[in-house]
């Protein structure tokens, strides 16, 4: 029937592909067999050597070799993810970086008069009240009168305060009244300068609009800083209300800023510059921004072949309170990098020629698992608010802006707007300033988690700058140069240029070496494997095959031996129980059967060469009767060699 062919097939398979168990019946036999037959060095000696000490030494040697292999291989694995650095210096035609130039003063003061007149009046008033400073007596008097009549509510909200004798008594600038204030005092230790004189401690107070008892107090050691900081605070409020188009008009145009331009020995003009509006620095102009798809490059190093511009810095039109220094700021950056002028811009002095030599370095790091950096910033959960490629700085600023919008409801003025948000001004968000200062404090203390989220970029370009300054124009050339430049500019304005209004800037490659620092994996898989092979070979002359052998003998075979013994025990226990239940059966016959069948010897499957040689002698056997070998045992042995060694199957076959 159906069963018969299947049985036939299984029998055939068993015959042609005999499934044998472990090489030895017991663990010790297995070990002996392994040691005699393995190709791994050391093990054979344990078995073959004579003498207990000798044997022990060989055991010790083999074990220590195994230990050494494991240790060294672990070391190799641990050092696998190490990188080596290669530095390549190339001489080639280098792409010229983008150079962004800003006037330090963001907007023309004359054009800003309409927006800032009130604030300036208040500032001048503060200067007079606290320090007795006045430019023209009558003018200030009048402005004080004006202010009293108009009375700006915003300035009342955050007035400048004067502190007396470290007490909480302050004099309000606006009302002139003395009052006690409460709140946490920031920057308490402001006694660095003229500590004995209490006159100069000046500051302002920021309060939570919803909860007026929550206040933060800011004090400054120097009045110059206090006035500037206070001015900036209000200035940002005012600027936040002005739309971008108006602001661009209020700031300098390319013609205003750039008087002459030379690049690579050829003349250039404002078409080579791209306007870029920076919230704190007004209109900035980027040379070689790559906006029109082409990036200029230099084929020769040296100051003659770089960018050479003369800038017009209209010092008279500066905002006296917002900025106190004169000059321009420049930054050298990659075309798709955002210029963080306010942070890392280099300042250019007026009435001087500033030469900036550049050295170009390109670096590239290996990302995970070698180091924790990001290739594109796509894997960082911070939205890039800037329209430029990722950098750590961009990430930190974006992260802060996002936190600002989330907790204060509006965006900080100095950073770009996230979608759907608008800039803070205290018409709409009366509370924003307190919120901002609190948030900034948290940010500084790394409580916002921005520093943890943001990672380095893996590849970056770097222009190392060397600045040198010379007096410019020289006394003898001053006259004619100023006259010519005035005439150039004269079409629009009727004013003779002063040399302190001009700055000469040269940006050039010192040499055309491009230093490329890149990390490469120090180890490849091939090297790792060959090192593994070396270690295995050195200590034990072992190979992958011997590793497989070890797995076979020590895990599979040993396990099967142990399992089988367990099974035998369980089976014996089961048999004993059965026997106890059925005690009626005669003891003699049982004994007879036991002696003839030899159940435990039956599981002694497939004796190997060694076991065969070492099979015990029956002479000293405590068993009183060893029956001569009979037909049944022989048959059983033979059959057991080809069947599964499990005794239960044997039993089945027997019955």
């Amino acid at each position, binding site marked *: 029937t159906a069963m018969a062919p299947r049985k036939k097939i299984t029998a055939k398979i068993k015959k042609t592909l*005999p499934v044998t168990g472990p090489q030895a019946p*017991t663990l*010790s036999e297995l070990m*002996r067999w392994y040691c005699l037959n393995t190709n791994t*060095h*050391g*093990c*054979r*000696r*344990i078995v073959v050597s*004579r*003498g207990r*000490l000798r044997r022990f030494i060989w055991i010790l040697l083999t074990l220590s*070799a195994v230990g050494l292999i494991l240790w*060294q291989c672990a070391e190799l694995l641990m050092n696998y993810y190490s990188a080596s*650095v290669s*530095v390549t210096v190339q001489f080639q035609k280098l792409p010229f970086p983008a150079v962004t130039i800003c006037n330090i003063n963001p907007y023309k003061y004359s054009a800003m008069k309409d927006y800032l007149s009130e604030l300036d009046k208040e500032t001048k008033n503060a200067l007079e009240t606290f*320090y007795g*400073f006045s430019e023209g007596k009558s003018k200030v008097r009048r402005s004080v009168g004006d202010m009293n009549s108009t009375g700006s509510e915003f300035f009342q909200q955050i007035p400048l305060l004067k502190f007396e004798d470290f007490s909480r008594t302050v004099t309000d600038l606006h009302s002139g009244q003395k009052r006690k204030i409460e709140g946490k005092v920031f920057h308490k*230790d402001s006694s660095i*300068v*003229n500590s004995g004189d209490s006159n100069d401690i000046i500051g302002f107070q920021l309060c939570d609009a919803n909860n007026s008892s929550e206040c933060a107090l800011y*004090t400054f050691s120097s009045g*110059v800083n206090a*006035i500037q900081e206070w001015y900036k605070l209000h200035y940002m409020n005012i600027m936040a209300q002005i739309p971008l188009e108006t602001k661009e008009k209020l700031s300098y145009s390319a013609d205003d800023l750039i008087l002459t331009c030379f690049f690579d020995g050829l003349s250039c003009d404002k078409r080579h510059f791209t306007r870029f509006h920076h919230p704190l620095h007004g209109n900035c102009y980027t040379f070689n921004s790559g906006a029109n798809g082409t990036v200029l490059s230099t084929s020769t190093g040296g100051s003659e072949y770089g960018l050479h511009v003369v800038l017009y810095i209209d010092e008279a039109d500066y905002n*006296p309170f917002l900025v*106190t*220094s004169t000059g*321009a700021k420049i930054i050298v950056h990659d075309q798709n990098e955002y210029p963080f002028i*306010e942070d*890392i811009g*280099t300042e250019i002095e007026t*009435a001087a020629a500033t030469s900036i030599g550049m050295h170009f370095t390109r*670096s590239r*790091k290996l990302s995970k698992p070698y*180091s924790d950096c990001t290739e594109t910033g796509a894997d960082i959960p911070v939205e890039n608010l800037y329209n430029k490629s990722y950098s*750590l700085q961009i990430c930190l600023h974006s992260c802060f802006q996002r936190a600002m919008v989330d907790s204060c409801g509006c965006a900080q003025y100095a950073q770009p707007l996230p979608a759907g948000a608008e800039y803070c001004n205290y018409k709409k968000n009366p509370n924003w300033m307190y919120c901002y200062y609190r948030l900034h404090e948290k940010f500084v203390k*790394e409580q916002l988690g921005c*520093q943890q989220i943001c990672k*380095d970029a893996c590849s970056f370009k770097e222009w*190392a700058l060397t600045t040198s300054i010379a007096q410019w124009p020289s006394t003898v050339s001053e006259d004619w140069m100023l006259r010519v430049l005035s005439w150039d500019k004269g079409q629009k304005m009727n004013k003779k240029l002063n040399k302190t209004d001009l700055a000469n800037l040269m940006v050039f490659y010192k040499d055309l070496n491009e230093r490329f620092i890149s990390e490469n994996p120090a180890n490849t898989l091939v090297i790792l494997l060959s090192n593994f*092979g*070396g*270690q295995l070979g*050195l200590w034990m*002359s072992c190979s992958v095959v011997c590793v497989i052998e070890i797995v076979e003998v020590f895990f599979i075979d040993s396990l099967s031996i142990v399992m089988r013994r367990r099974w035998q025990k369980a089976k014996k226990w089961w048999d004993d129980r059965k026997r106890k239940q059925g005690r009626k059966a005669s003891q003699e016959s049982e004994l007879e059967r036991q002696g003839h069948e030899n159940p*435990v010897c039956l599981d002694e499957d*497939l*004796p190997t060469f060694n076991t*065969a040689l*070492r*099979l*015990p*002698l*029956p002479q000293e*056997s405590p068993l009183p009767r*060893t029956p001569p*070998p009979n037909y049944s045992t022989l048959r059983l*042995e033979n059959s057991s*060699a080809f069947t599964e060694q499990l005794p239960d199957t044997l039993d089945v076959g027997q019955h």
Partner: protein
Amino acid sequence: VLQDGSAKSENAPEGEKMRECKQGAEQQQKEDEREGLIEFYGSYQELFQFFCSNTTIHGAIRLVCSKKNKMKTAFWSVLFFLTFSLMYWQFGILYREYFSYPVNLNLNLNSDRLAFPAVTLCTLNPYRYSAIRKKLDELDQITHQTLLDLYDYNMSLARSDWSTLSTRKRSSRSLLHHVQRHPLRRQKRDNLVSLPENSPSVDKNDWKIGFVLCSENNDDCFHQAYSSGVDAVREWYSFHYINILAQIPDAKALDESDFENFIYSCRFNEATCDKANYTHFHHPLYGNCYTFNDNSSSLWTSSLPGINNGLSLVVRTEQHDFIPLLSTVTGARVMVHDQNEPAFMDDGGFNVRPGIETSISMRKEMTVRLGGSYSNCTEDGSDVPVQNLYSSRYTEQVCIRSCFQLNMVERCGCAYYFYPLPAGATYCNYMKHIAWGYCYYKLLVEFKADVLGCFHKCRKPCKMTEYQLSAGYSRWPSAVSEDWVFYMLSQQNKYNITSKRNGVAKVNIFFEEWNYKTNGESPAFTVVTLLSQLGNQWSLWFGSSVLSVMELAELILDFIAITFILAFRWLRSHRTHSPPGPHPSSQDNTAFQDEASGLSTPHRFTVEAVVTTLPSYNSLEPCGPSRDSEKGHE
């Protein structure tokens, strides 16, 4: 579990096992018990037979063990020595590579929060301290006279000095006497044949100017010459100035801090800095110096890179009450250095111009070298044979200066004023040490030519932190804001506007970026890789391992032991029997074994012997066919 030791322990739970099977184990156990601590072979032949049948060295088997065929032996020995030499050639290459200690350069970009470095600011204005005021005035007087004599220049001196001059001249005659010992001289080159010059490079014009320094008993003199009179006068003046300073026994007398009149405003990270954040020291040439952020317990950290988050200072650069012959520059000097590193202002300073806002951006760079055999650097300076006189961490500059000072004390008997005092020494001044100038300038030449070995002895520290600075300048204050800024400064800081823009300067120091580079080194060829390479070579040429070498070692040890035993046996038998004793060979086994049992060395059964002597059809019968079947399956 692979040792036979465990086989014994395993026998215990096998109690229920079949008797016959157990017997086998018992017999084996007995055999083990019969086995001695160490068993030796009866003869060389036996030894080699054992070795040949069990060794794992590939070539060796063929060489030693195939002695039947001479042709084959010759072939194998050639092959053996060929591979042997090839392997050792490769080993040599590997060892040479390893002992050249190659390193890999590692470049790490870390972006942790950076601790702000210490910033030292000096006034560039050597101060006229009240303790030395009298003597300085007198020195000025002498200088005035000298300049008048040499250059016909009438130097203007402060009025107060003139009025009391005559009385002081008498009271401190000693200074004049000492100054006259080292007068500033200008001579025609031709006339100067007698005196050797200390600066051989000066060869500019017919005239030369300098001063003469002589040894204590005036028998050896040289002319310290300068090419320019400006240098000569300055050097001469500062030489005497040092002498005056060194006469003040207590350094505390010079500790006159004038912080409020120098730093007008200080901000860090948009907050006002507090008073506890600076320490003060006095530099003889750079005047009062203030170090910010020197306190290692509470270090400043910037929250962001950029100009707003750095240190911003307004300093006064106006110089009054200064010593015109010592400092010829005006402004302030800034230096950025690590905490617990001394500020060597002349090594790495940055001058700040008056009337200018100087924005200094920093980039931090760390270099970590591998010490030990990899490069000649020192971890903490404890292994450098120069005592560290500074109380700071070891740096190369600290070491070089300490080295010079120690040499100075040893050679001249007194210490140079600019460097710290070693224990038990005093500063040089010509009241006590008449010829120290002679000694010092001689030593300086030797020091610069590295005869003293200071540059040789002082090694670079393994860990170095550098700050790369670059500066931008803008005018400060601007024309429109200068009115109110100066007014406020005058109100607040009692700053009286005399020279407007040139009186003050602004300095900003900030981190340009948060990332800092770490240039590290790691060994390119470690012990692990060396061993791996050796193992690779060994496996390739020999297919043997360390354990094979152990086998070889065992063979040699056995060989020696057997030689000794046989020799001993031969000697004994020689003594008891007739002189030509039986030759020890494999046939002699029984005799040897008798002796051996006497030496409590149990005699040895080979496995084959057991099998052959104890055949039993009972055991053979069940196992025989199974063995055959096994072979067949394999």
